[in-house]
């Protein structure tokens, strides 16, 4: 069996295209790791400065911490050395008046509008602002609790709406009242989260190119008649093909995850594992989990996504008679949810599309956005979170799909 698996792996990797693709994808992944969001190479010096600045304010977000931040910010804004001259101040005020702001508004403007440009753009000021924003963590959580409760009571019908509302309120309420969020430098964890968005183009593309030939090539190369007439051609061979596919998929995924972790740890560091994940803009996670736990949860779901994606590719390969067709169909089906934006459709159709997208293998492969919002399903009188339902469904579908693929090849008739 091991020998057969080895040869199946060899078949997938021996093609020059596969080897070239591995190198290209690893290079692309590496390049993205080394570049920042502005498109320039990450500077160790900048990272160190940010780490030093943010570490000053590292700690649990509580009343004392919040007070300290507020006072520091106030002190900065009231320091005359940080403010523009009187003449410049008048110019700024006149500018606001010309834009239509009232005199009353202009008179009440605080010193934020009169800080010197070098202060406004300074790292220390921006970090302080970031910390100030973080100090409102519990307020935002409470707001979300109220908003979600209202939303589900309004949109849901009867018991369902009430159950979902209560669940959302409970989760966000916990964040608002009982959870202790931590602030600190966590650039490494944010980078790791960002790298997940590349998974479809790195891991997904690799799997589509290499695994799509696992069965379809036997048809197109006419080796199916030889294989199926051997002793193990209808049993061990199929297990070996499936095994080799999953070994390759998980192996490459682990390689990319390992590469990301190592480079990020080396460049950015892994400080801030205990810091909170919510930014209350793009990430409204109802989960009271810090960066490290979030990282692990995302990887578990991403791994399930790799398995699900591999299963679908295998099924397409076994059903298709052509390697090229398998690759094209796999690419379209699996990558379109990330490459093409689905138009906003209202009503039941829109909701169906929105729900269906959650179950797409490529979304599972990315996984980060599963933990950024509240979504629950009302099943048999209970609220089950989407974050449990989607992976379970993916696992069950993977098992089903692999079983179908097994039987399809086993029953394949050589007719041409």
């Amino acid at each position, binding site marked *: 069996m091991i*020998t*057969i698996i080895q*040869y199946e792996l*060899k*078949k997938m990797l*021996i*093609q020059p295209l596969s080897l070239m693709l591995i190198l290209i994808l690893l290079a692309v992944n590496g390049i993205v790791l080394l570049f920042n969001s502005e498109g320039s190479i990450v500077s160790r010096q900048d990272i160190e400065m940010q780490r030093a600045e943010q570490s000053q304010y590292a700690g649990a977000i509580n009343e004392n911490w919040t007070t300290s931040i507020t006072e520091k910010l106030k002190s900065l804004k009231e320091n005359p050395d940080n403010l523009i001259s009187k003449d410049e101040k008048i110019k700024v005020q006149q500018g606001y008046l010309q834009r239509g702001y009232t005199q009353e508004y202009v008179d009440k403007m605080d010193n934020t509008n009169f800080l010197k440009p070098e202060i406004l753009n300074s790292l220390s000021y921006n970090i302080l602002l970031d910390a100030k924003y973080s100090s409102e963590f519990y307020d935002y959580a409470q707001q979300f609790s109220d908003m979600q409760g209202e939303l589900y009571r309004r949109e849901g019908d009867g018991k369902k709406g009430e159950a979902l509302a209560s669940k959302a309120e409970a989760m966000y309420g916990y964040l608002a009242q009982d959870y202790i969020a931590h602030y600190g430098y966590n650039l490494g964890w944010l980078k790791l989260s960002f790298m997940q968005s590349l998974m479809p183009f790195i891991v997904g593309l690799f799997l589509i190119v290499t695994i799509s030939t696992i069965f379809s090539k*036997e048809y197109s*190369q*006419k*080796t*199916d*008649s*030889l*294989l*199926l*007439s*051997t*002793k*193990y*051609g*209808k*049993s*061990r*061979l199929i297990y070996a093909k499936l095994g080799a596919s999953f070994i390759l998929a998980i192996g490459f995924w682990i390689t990319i995850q390992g590469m990301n972790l190592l480079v990020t740890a080396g460049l950015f560091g892994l400080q801030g594992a205990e810091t909170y994940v919510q930014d209350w803009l793009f990430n409204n996670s109802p989960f009271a989990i810090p960066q490290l736990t979030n990282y692990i949860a995302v990887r578990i779901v991403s791994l399930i996504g790799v398995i699900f994606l591999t299963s679908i590719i295998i099924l397409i390969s076994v059903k298709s008679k052509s390697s090229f067709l398998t690759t094209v169909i796999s690419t379209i089906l699996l990558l379109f949810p990330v490459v093409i934006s689905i138009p906003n459709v209202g009503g039941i159709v829109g909701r169906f599309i929105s729900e269906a997208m959650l179950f797409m293998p490529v979304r599972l492969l990315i996984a980060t956005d599963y933990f950024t919002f509240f979504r629950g399903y009302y099943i048999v009188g209970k609220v089950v979170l989407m974050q449990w339902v989607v992976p379970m469904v993916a696992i069950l579908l993977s098992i089903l799909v692999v079983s179908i693929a097994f039987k399809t090849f086993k029953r*394949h*008739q*050589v*007719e041409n």
Partner: protein
Amino acid sequence: MELKINKLTKQYGNKIAVDRFSVTFTEGINGLLGANGSGKTTLMRMMCDILRPTSGEVLLDGVNITTLDEAYRELLGYLPQNFGYYPDFSAWDFMLYFSSLKGLPRLTAENRCKELLNMVGLYEVRKKKIKTYSGGMRQRLGIAQALINDPKILILDEPTVGLDPKERAKFRNIISENSTGKIVLLSTHIVSDVEYIADRIMIMKEGQLSQQATTDRICDSIKDFVWSLQVAPNDVDSYNSNFIVSNLKHSGEQVELRIVSEERPSEKAVNVSPNLEDLYLYHFKGEV
């Protein structure tokens, strides 16, 4: 050991590729002659359990081969027509891969592969990629893989395609040497492939078994239908259009024709002993 084909039929829509084919194989070399599209490949695929028949069955010692499953395929060696290969594999990889699929342990497999590659003359180039091989080399590799598990049932579909006369002669010797105690079924267009080594010949036409007999008796059915005569060169075209001319040889100012015909083609024609080629032409005259 007995391999029985019992009213085997394969139908695709309105087309019947194999039509109630029944025959019993025992140990020995069986030649299967038939024109393109006569159903030989379809028959062989059903015998290899890679194509489900529409009706009928293949029985090994009374048990359906589908029921036997792995136990049947363990005894089987198969070389399909236009067999596929992995271009980037070496011959050595290819043989070891199929050895593992046929259930040979690693050490046994290596020794067996070495032996077979030597036998077909590919051992020296075993590490080269198959895509660099000529057609004849690939065919020899195909023959080698069919023999890996020392099969008790060997099914070869057009095995000598791409082989030159010397290689075909070597192939005949390999089959003869390796056929003791085995059921060998060999389909071919090349009559000489089976003429000298087959114990029994079957003629397959339009999916049906048209004729079968031992090699020395198969031609009895046309013993009165093969003629030899000498004609003037100007008359050759006329005979070509009206009769099956199996051979034409210039002999001085005359041309010696060998004709297959139920009717005497000419008063000067002399009845001669038929050979397998005459028989093939007689059966497939419509397709010639």
